[in-house]
């Protein structure tokens, strides 16, 4: 694939984050801050703002990649109920740390995006839900909101019009599920962060049962640039169906982990080797998770692919939140998967049985394999459990756990087999159809069963077959 010349790429979202004082309103105003919001409110009607954003093909950066303008247009125009604009800063997908940079270093760009989004859907109350762990980020936002109120960017009569907007920063308290939009709304209502069944979609009945739009931090940060420079300009960055600047977080076994602003559609290989400095310690690449741990894993030979929503979907994974986790050839994939599944089991909210039990079973099976008591049929049991989790629950947490599990098990199956064969012999009787059998030997138990021809044998008792797994064990471990 052709590599992009990144030296010509002009940073948009991260233009100011490295500068001294970029988090203050004075700096922000000096560098063209709040111009986009002013232009939107004074020059456009709300419906025009929605049309511009629709035209720009801006897609949500939180994970699903849903077109932002289309989402806004679902909000009913004529309703007596209040409407709410909610920004999701509950960044908790493992491997994602892009919004944190914007929150801590450029909070006013988020506030400006919130003004534009709220104006477009004609709402007067906005909330920003930030995860509880980001204490510094919360303080930065509270400070920025106060500055914005003082300068008249929030409150009553924005930019000399009769448009009012109130913004409240709401702090979460450590729950991955609150990053899911309906879970987030439950949490904002002061409840447990349990997702709700859709439909009704939040655009029709969301926060406090009123029409609500939930957007990601990075999504709203794009809005002022689209208003200022036009939808055509935005569409020219990257692929037309999902254009724009994208923040990608590279973590794991690379030399230069970090958040990088790149145009949508950058090659994943280029990102890992050029931008992030390649795999650390001179090791070889083994696997990459391209969109947070909820995405399906890619093997080293599959990474020559553009980072955009559609290209990733075409190879059966997803760009998700843009969290690229790189694993080198020393990584134990069984251990990695155990870590991922442990996370989802911990974070499952417990409403739906397939998710609550499925993640628990997967964790137990993996723990057993790790402890050396794995059974060969565990591999298929895991795949079976994954099948029974996908698409069977209120929210997509079950899918998010099943995708990495099924893809890692399928793509690195030999590692699981090796680990199971390496394990303590005792439990292998399940696989071999009787108590532990040494290579070439036939146990007394099996001999007895063989004599009794009426006993239905599910598993072949041919000594050749019985000894095979143990022999291959020697090969894989030596």
């Amino acid at each position, binding site marked *: 694939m052709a590599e992009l010349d990144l030296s010509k790429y002009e940073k948009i979202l991260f233009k100011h984050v490295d500068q001294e004082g970029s988090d203050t309103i004075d700096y922000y105003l000096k560098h063209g801050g709040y111009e986009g919001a002013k232009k939107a409110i004074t020059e456009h009607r709300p419906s025009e703002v929605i049309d511009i954003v629709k035209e720009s093909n801006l897609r949500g950066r939180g994970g699903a990649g849903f077109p932002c303008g289309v989402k806004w247009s679902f909000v009913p125009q004529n309703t007596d109920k209040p409407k709410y604009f909610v920004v999701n800063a509950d960044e908790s997908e493992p491997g*994602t740390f892009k919004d944190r940079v914007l929150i801590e270093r450029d909070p006013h760009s988020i506030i400006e995006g919130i003004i534009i989004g709220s104006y477009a859907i004609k709402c007067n109350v906005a909330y920003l839900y930030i995860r*509880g*762990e980001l*204490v510094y980020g919360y303080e930065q936002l509270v400070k920025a909101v106060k500055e914005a109120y003082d300068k008249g960017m929030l409150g009553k009569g924005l930019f000399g019009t009769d448009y009012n907007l109130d913004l409240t920063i709401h702090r979460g*308290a450590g729950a991955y599920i609150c990053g899911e939009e309906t879970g987030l709304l439950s949490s904002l209502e002061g409840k*447990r962060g349990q997702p709700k069944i859709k439909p009704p979609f939040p655009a029709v009945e969301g926060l406090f049962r009123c029409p609500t739009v939930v957007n990601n931090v990075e999504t709203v940060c794009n809005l002022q640039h689209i208003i200022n420079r036009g939808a055509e300009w935005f569409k020219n960055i990257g692929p037309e169906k999902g254009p724009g600047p994208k923040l990608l977080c590279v*973590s*794991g076994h690379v030399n230069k982990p970090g958040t990088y602003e790149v145009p949508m559609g950058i090659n994943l290989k280029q990102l890992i080797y050029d931008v992030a400095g390649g795999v650390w310690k001179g090791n070889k690449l083994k696997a990459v998770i391209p969109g947070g741990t909820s995405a399906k894993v890619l093997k080293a030979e599959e990474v020559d692919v553009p980072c955009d929503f559609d290209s990733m979907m075409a190879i059966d994974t997803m760009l998700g939140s843009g969290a690229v986790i790189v694993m080198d050839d020393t990584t134990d994939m069984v251990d*990695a998967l155990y870590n991922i599944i442990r996370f989802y089991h911990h974070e499952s909210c417990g409403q739906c049985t397939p998710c609550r039990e499925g993640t628990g079973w997967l964790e137990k099976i993996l723990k057993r394999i790790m402890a050396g008591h794995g059974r060969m049929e565990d591999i298929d049991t895991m795949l079976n459990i994954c099948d029974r989790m996908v698409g069977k629950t209120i929210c997509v947490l079950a899918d998010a756990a099943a995708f990495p599990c099924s893809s890692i098990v399928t793509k690195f199956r030999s590692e699981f087999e090796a680990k199971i064969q390496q394990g303590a012999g005792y439990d292998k009787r399940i696989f071999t159809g009787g108590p532990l059998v040494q290579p070439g030997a036939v146990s007394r138990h099996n001999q007895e069963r063989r004599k009794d021809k009426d006993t239905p044998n599910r598993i072949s008792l041919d000594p050749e077959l019985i000894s095979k797994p143990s022999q291959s064990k020697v090969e894989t471990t030596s």
Partner: protein
Amino acid sequence: MSAFQEITQAAREDERVEFSAEAKKKIEWIYTRYPNREAALLPVLRVAEKEFDGIGAAAIDCIAREMGLSPGYIYGVFTFYTHYKRAGEGKYVLQVCATLPCALRGCRDVVHHLEDKLGIKPGETTEDGKFTLKKVECLASCDTAPVVQINDDYHENLTLEDLDKLLESFE
């Protein structure tokens, strides 16, 4: 003692705790930001966390009276979230990120080192009440892994030597 018994006991007149005037003022302001009182629960729990140095049965009873919600409901919401400081936790809560990106860069060594050094397992508090060790999920700082959050602050790119120095710096 069950949580129910603890809260019932804390609700007795002589064991009650109350919000200070300053905290009450803050809570009144929080109410104005939401269309109903119930929605203010998470921020009010934060106020209580600071006010009572960790949330326990007495704090839950106090919030229940303040907000007009049942203690059981508040307990249910409170225990759903993992980040609130609980009553009885140490002065310094060491939260080691144990999720995949940190695990790839050696968070396990950090946990083992802390276990050896402090003589406690994750979820426990040292006898002098100074340190609580916790394993937590992704702290959104994967580029600077391994990461430990100690109370409100992140400590990033940790080596075991850094960790030793850090622990010594806490009195």
